[in-house]
C-alpha cells in the first residue's frame, strides 16, 4: 500500500488536520512521511516598496521562519507517532507546482492535503492548489475536510 506520503502544509488549521490524518495513516501502514512547506515570494513590483513597510528580504525571512515553525510542528507530531519524517522548505510563486515536483522527485505514492488553505471561501470553493495537485500530481490525493 502507500509507503511514502507527502504532506504539503501551508500552516492553516486545515492543512495541519490533513497532516495529522496523513501521519495517522502512515502509522497504520508502516509508511514514512515528508512534510513540505512552500513559501510564496512577494511579487516584485517597483512602487510596492513604498507602500509596504517591509522589504522583500524581510518578508521572505519571516515567511521562512514561519514555514520552519509549521514543519517543526508536523515533524514533532510524526515523531510522537513513531512515523519517520523528513521535511523541506521551498520557495515558489505557485505552490502547487512545487508540491507536484516534490512528489515526483521523492517518489511519493500518496499526497494528503487540505481541500483549501488560507485563501478561498471556506467550503464553497475547492482550493486551486488542491485542484492542481489532484489533476497533475500523478498519485492519489487524500483531501482532508
Amino acid at each position: 500500500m502507500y509507503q511514502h506520503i507527502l504532506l504539503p502544509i501551508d500552516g492553516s488549521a486545515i492543512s495541519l488536520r490533513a497532516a495529522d490524518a496523513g501521519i495517522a495513516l502512515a502509522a497504520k501502514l508502516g509508511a514514512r512521511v515528508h512534510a513540505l512547506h512552500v513559501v510564496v515570494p512577494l511579487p516584485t513590483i517597483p512602487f510596492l516598496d513604498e507602500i509596504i513597510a517591509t522589504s522583500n528580504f524581510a518578508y521572505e525571512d519571516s515567511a521562512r521562519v514561519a514555514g520552519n515553525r509549521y514543519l517543526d510542528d508536523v515533524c514533532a507530531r510524526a515523531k510522537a507517532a513513531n512515523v519517520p519524517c523528513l521535511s523541506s522548505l521551498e520557495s515558489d510563486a505557485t505552490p502547487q507546482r512545487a508540491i507536484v515536483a516534490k512528489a515526483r522527485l521523492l517518489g511519493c505514492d500518496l499526497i494528503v492535503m487540505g481541500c483549501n488553505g488560507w485563501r478561498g471561501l471556506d467550503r464553497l470553493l475547492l482550493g486551486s492548489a488542491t485542484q492542481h495537485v489532484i489533476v497533475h500530481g500523478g498519485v492519489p490525493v487524500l483531501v482532508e475536510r
Partner: protein
Amino acid sequence: MFKHILLPVDGSELCMHAVRLGIELARTCRSRVFALHVVAPYHAMANVTELLAVGETAYTREAFLHAEHYLLAVQTLADSAGIECRSDSVLNDHPHEAILQTAHAQGCDLIVMASHGWHGVTRLLLGSQTQEVLLESDVPVLVCR
C-alpha cells in the same frame, strides 16, 4: 483511523481502479466498506428518451440489473480481501447527492472515488461528481486517478 469507507461505483474502469485501492486500504486499516451505485432516473435521461426504444419500467429494470452486476464485482473483490462489504443502489438525478447522503446515513468516515467517471479523463480536469463531493463532503475524500 478510517473504519467505514464509502466506495461510489459507477461501473467504469476508472472507478474500479479506485475501488481496488479502497479495498486495499480497508484491508490494511481493518475497516469495512459500503459500495454505492447511483442510477439516473428515467426522467433525467429525458433528452434521449425519444431514442430509447424502451419505456420507463424496462429502463429502470435494466439499470438496476447493471447496478447489481457492478456491485457484485465490488463484493467479490471485498470477499477476496477478507473485508466486510455492504452495498446499495439508489435512484438520484445527482450522484454526488446520493453519495453524500449515504456517507452520512451509513456513518462512513472516508470516501474513496475516482477523479473521473464514464466521461473519462479527456473532457474535464476533474469529474463533475468528484468535484461536487469534494466541495460538500464532511469527511475526507481519497481521489484516485
